[in-house]
């Protein structure tokens, strides 16, 4: 009975996790993309929390604590404090690919993820097979989002989405190692600090956070 409830909760969290990725992909306002990233990270922590009982793995509490502390508190705080209100309030008026086409591509990515994962999960439990497919799906949607967004902050958050996708699968299929989880979490913060500093330098030197417009370096050009 307990296992059934946990399995249903795991499926629900997985569905919401995927939904958050799709909404992040199509949201125009930068501040809202950040809010969605926080929601997605909470769902990642919730998944780890459920897996503590599903996989009888108490070590996953480390993942819960690291995800909550780093991804839902520190990273949003760093982004909010260091990037000005102007950057956070920006809207991407024009997407490289329009929303309906992006939604269709996301659907295709989801089908592809299940197609790739299906032969791998023969004897594994439901939680493993579901989380493996969901993680891969969110990772690939993150890669797609990174490719089509033109603003610095949504690109940073797409990077974090890829990270969330990889670790959603990682915590479901591998043993949790506190040291590696901590190192990966700290690295996530370092990545954010580095890209925030770069974004600020871009604002000062180039006068824009529209990274899609950075096309001065190409063949035939030189200093």
């Amino acid at each position, binding site marked *: 009975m307990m296992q059934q409830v946990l399995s249903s909760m795991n499926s629900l969290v997985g569905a919401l996790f995927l939904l958050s990725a799709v909404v992040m992909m199509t949201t125009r306002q930068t501040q809202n993309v950040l809010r969605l990233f926080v929601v997605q990270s909470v769902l990642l922590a919730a998944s780890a929390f459920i897996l503590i009982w599903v996989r009888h793995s108490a070590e996953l509490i480390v993942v819960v604590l690291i995800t909550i502390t780093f991804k839902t508190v520190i990273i949003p705080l760093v982004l909010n404090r260091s990037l000005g209100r102007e950057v956070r309030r920006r809207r991407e008026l024009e997407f490289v690919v329009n929303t309906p086409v992006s939604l269709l591509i996301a659907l295709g990515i989801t089908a592809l993820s299940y197609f790739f994962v299906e032969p791998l999960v023969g004897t594994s439990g439901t939680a493993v097979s579901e989380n493996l497919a969901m993680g891969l799906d969110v*990772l690939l949607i993150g890669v797609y989002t990174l490719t089509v967004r033109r603003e610095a902050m949504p690109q940073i958050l797409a990077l974090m989405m890829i990270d969330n996708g990889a670790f959603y699968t990682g915590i479901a299929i591998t*043993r949790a190692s506190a040291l590696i989880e901590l190192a990966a979490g700290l690295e996530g913060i*370092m990545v954010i600090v580095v890209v925030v500093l*770069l974004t600020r330098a871009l604002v000062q030197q180039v006068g824009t956070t529209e990274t899609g417009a950075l096309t001065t370096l190409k*063949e*035939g050009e030189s*200093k």
Partner: protein
Amino acid sequence: MTVIAIPLIPLIASLVAVLSRRLAVTRTVTTAAGLLTLILSVWVASVVNEKGTMLVFPNWIAVDGLSSLILVLQGFLSLTAALFSWGYMKRVTRSRPRERWYYVNLNLFIASLFMVPIFLQPALTWVAVELTTILSVFLVSFENTPQALEAAWKYTVITIMGATVAVFGIFLLIWGVTQQHVDVDTWATVASASPHMSVSLLKLAFVFIFIGFGTKVGIVPMHTWLPDAHSQAPSAVCALLSGIEVSTILYVIMRLWPAFLVIPGGFAERWALIFGLISVATSAFLMIQVKDYKRLFAFSTVEQMGILLVALGLGAGSNYALLCQLMTHALTKSLTFYSAGAVLLVTSTLNIANVRGLIRISPIAGTSLLFSGLAIGGAPPFALFLSELSIFKASLTASRIFVLVLLLAFLTLAFIAILRHLNHMVFGKPTHARVKLPRTVTASLILSWIPVLVLGVYFPGSIHHWLTLATVALRR
């Protein structure tokens, strides 16, 4: 403990750069750190050459033939880069705090590079790979120009995305190991568990690892960031990025290679051959039309990574040639970037069209640029010639005539492209007044030339034994 000291030394040098008020101290300590890490790396390599491996912490840290090869190359390049930076940064950087900031970042980046080959666990190595990007971003953006910032942005976003994609593949492999009820995830356990993993799992893991780490190696079509980043950074950093960073990341793919060899039908080898040839072909054509000489050498890095992949795809028969090429490329490519940096010092332009008569503007920079261009193009009697010849021989032995013909055609094209551009720059009426190079820049050029010349005509038996030992890591 010597192995752990190697990444710690540049970390300490970085701390000195933060604390010291005198730049002379920072420069001296950075160069001394480079020399010390080289000495320690050579010592570790000699022990490995004798005993086969050097175990520090079982299942965590150890060095074998392949990792000692990477360590020694990193050590040599960190010394020459420190020496080159001494005179170069002194002349081009007007602000003392900015120069200090450069040395802090340079030492941190070198420390992160040293961490990659010493770990035994794929997940920990991935953490080190991520660190190499994070700690080199501000070196790429150091000039703080719009172009440098653009290059740094692309470098950060694309390579971190690649590394995160690769970690998914690593998770899959660890899952495969766990299914065999093995508790430790090291290179060895992944390789020994791989025959019992499902083919689908291995294929999916391979694709993610190959594309993910391949992005940071600069394999076409994921190479777009490389010519930008490797041409915008200060020249000593370009030498480190192009000379050893990309090879260090390729090392991670090579480490997992024995696990992927069990995929039936030569799946991994075919991917390496196809992407290798595409990289060589694309870069050869792009090298013809470049207008910026540092970009020319950056594309040459894409070409060389393609050659290394082709060698990897040719199978066990070319493993020795592959490692020989990796070594000679690291030594020669760093030399070409030091030469390019020397040219930039005396001409203040990166535009090929704006430089003529370099041999008279600065005989040292002109001669070094011309001959390093010939060396990286694979001309005799330089070191790269012998290793490329070994790869050609290996493709003949493996009966891959088509691969050999394509490789020869594209390499000839790349060679002509390099020579055409350098011929324009080196000869003709001088466009600039005669300028003297800083002494440390000249010293760095001389030091870099020694192995490129020596290994082209004389290959010591101990290095032959060392490389043979390193090939063990690539076999099942």
